[in-house]
């Protein structure tokens, strides 16, 4: 069988024009599919950046909350009520809100402010300059050094600016695992300073962060919180909720899905048509092989090999091209939201397998149907 597959390989590769057309078509389709799904994965990852960066196991929130940025403030008693739930080791408040910073240049810049529990500073970022205790200092803030950092004029330690008409001083420079989605810088401070600086409605508690005594206690905590009229989600559950929101309630998911399907259809059309032409051009030769004594299974194996080889080569090229594009884009645009995940690769792989299957099916049907006698008749 290896010899026959070698023949099949030479037949497709030596037909350079068609081989190139097949490679370009499927590679382009894979490239588009990977780019689309990676961009979406990147957006989802960034949309959950606060959940990832804060690192709490369980998040308590209003059931109407879909993203960290759109928190619905809860009354303070919720914090005490959560602390009293059996299975909770400790619970702390978290503030998340937006503010305007007036820079020394006189320009304004929107920022996200994260207010950490004053007692524990739970959810604090890793500081690369300064000490975390310095957040207790007067007007102290830590700024996240990410791709948005230059928008604040790349502040150093001790830099001062106005935040909602209050004086603010940079006392720490932090790094986080994932930067935010919306292209605005992030500041960390204490919970009380955050609610003092940022105009708030009657309630100020954005989230309650819970550390359970054990993973087994989480379902009971979730039930107890639900009985209070609120929602407790694990970090993964919250990320899923955010992802679901972006997928189904923003139109973003539908657009990405449409573009991915269109890419798939483009790849399928190019591959299907080119492969069909290739089979048609060689049909008499396949018929001659059948006459000589090739079993149907041998011809099917040849065609399947050709389709599989072409598709997998294109798959590799498409992934390489997409990864290269993303890497180059990230060099130029540090906040570029695209992440190649195993899920993206698997999705593209499944689609490439479908492309190979459909393309080879068309060819196989044609070859199986040809009667060797037709070759004799000419």
């Amino acid at each position: 069988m290896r010899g026959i597959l070698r023949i099949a390989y030479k037949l497709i590769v030596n037909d350079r024009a068609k081989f190139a057309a097949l490679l370009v078509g499927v590679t382009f389709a894979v490239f588009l599919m990977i780019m689309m799904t990676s961009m979406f994965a990147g957006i989802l990852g960034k949309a959950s950046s606060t959940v990832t960066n804060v690192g709490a196991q369980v998040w308590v929130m209003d059931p109407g909350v879909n993203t960290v940025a759109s928190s619905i403030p809860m009354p303070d008693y919720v914090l005490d009520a959560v602390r009293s739930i059996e299975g909770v080791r400790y619970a702390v408040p978290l503030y998340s809100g937006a503010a305007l910073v007036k820079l020394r240049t006189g320009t304004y810049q929107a920022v996200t402010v994260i207010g950490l529990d004053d007692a524990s500073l739970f959810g604090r970022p890793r500081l690369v300059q300064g000490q975390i205790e310095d957040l207790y200092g007067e007007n102290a803030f830590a700024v996240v050094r990410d791709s948005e950092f230059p928008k604040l004029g790349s502040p150093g330690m001790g830099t001062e600016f106005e935040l909602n008409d209050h004086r603010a001083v940079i006392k720490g420079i932090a790094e986080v695992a994932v930067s935010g989605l919306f292209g605005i810088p992030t500041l960390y401070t204490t919970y009380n300073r955050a609610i003092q600086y940022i105009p708030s409605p009657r309630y100020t508690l954005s989230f309650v962060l819970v550390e359970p005594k054990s993973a087994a206690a989480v379902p009971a905590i979730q039930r107890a919180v639900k009985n209070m009229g609120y929602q407790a989600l694990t970090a993964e559950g919250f990320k899923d909720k955010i992802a679901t929101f972006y997928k189904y309630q923003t139109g973003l998911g539908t657009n990405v899905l449409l573009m991915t399907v269109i890419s798939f259809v483009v790849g399928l059309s190019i591959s299907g048509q080119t492969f069909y032409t290739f089979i048609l051009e060689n049909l008499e030769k396949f018929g001659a092989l059948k006459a000589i004594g090739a079993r149907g299974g041998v011809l099917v194996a040849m065609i399947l090999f050709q389709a599989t080889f072409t598709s997998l080569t294109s798959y590799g090229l498409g992934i390489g091209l997409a990864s290269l594009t993303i890497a180059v884009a990230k060099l130029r645009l540090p906040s570029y939201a695209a992440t190649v995940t195993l899920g993206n690769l698997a999705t593209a792989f499944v689609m490439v397998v479908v492309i190979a299957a459909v393309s080879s099916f068309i060819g196989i049907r044609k070859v199986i149907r040809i009667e060797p006698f037709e070759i004799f008749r000419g």
Partner: protein
Amino acid sequence: MDSVAIQASGLNRWFGEGDARTHAVKDVTFDARFGEMLYIEGPSGSGKTTLLSMISGILRPTSGTVAVEGRDIWGLPPDELADFRLNKIGFVFQDYHLFPRLTTLENAAMSLVMRKMEWGQALDQAMHYLEVVGLKDRATLPPVKLSGGEQQRVAIARAIAGRPDLLVFDEPTASLDGDTGRRIVEFVKKEILTAEKCIVLVTHDSRIFEYADRIMQMEDGKVKGFQKGASP
């Protein structure tokens, strides 16, 4: 050696349905022997190619039997019949049917590769037969770089590389000029035909009749008669 290679008995073949039904081969009975070059001759539409297809296991007769080396080939299951063709019969087609994207050598090795012979061994054996047909120096060229006569010789090398007992040629000179056609058939007669082989050749090219041992004349699907060839 005068044993029977092919024995065809009462072969009939119909094509089409209803009013378009055509009786292409009508009650044909004949045999072909080892060491013999048998021509099937007749005008277009006389049923020559249909008959050749039936005796080489490609087209199932509507009725009648074909025994090759005493074996009823149409009693074999499809895969066994394909194996039988691969191992026992060498085919040379009118239009050669060589793969243009493979080299001459790879084309000649095709039937050996299909027999699952190891790649290097298949190429070595095919090279030997390219040498037999005088095309060793063309081994690495694609068929499109060869003349019609050379392509026909590659097709012959492909057919004989597997050392089949029976060789069938379908209009081997139809695409060639007279001299080349004659040279090809003369070559086949002198270099390929042995006492252990039987060659059946379909043609209506009278210029090559001189190389036949026997000529079976067909007309309107029937055997009109046999004539002894002018072969020495």
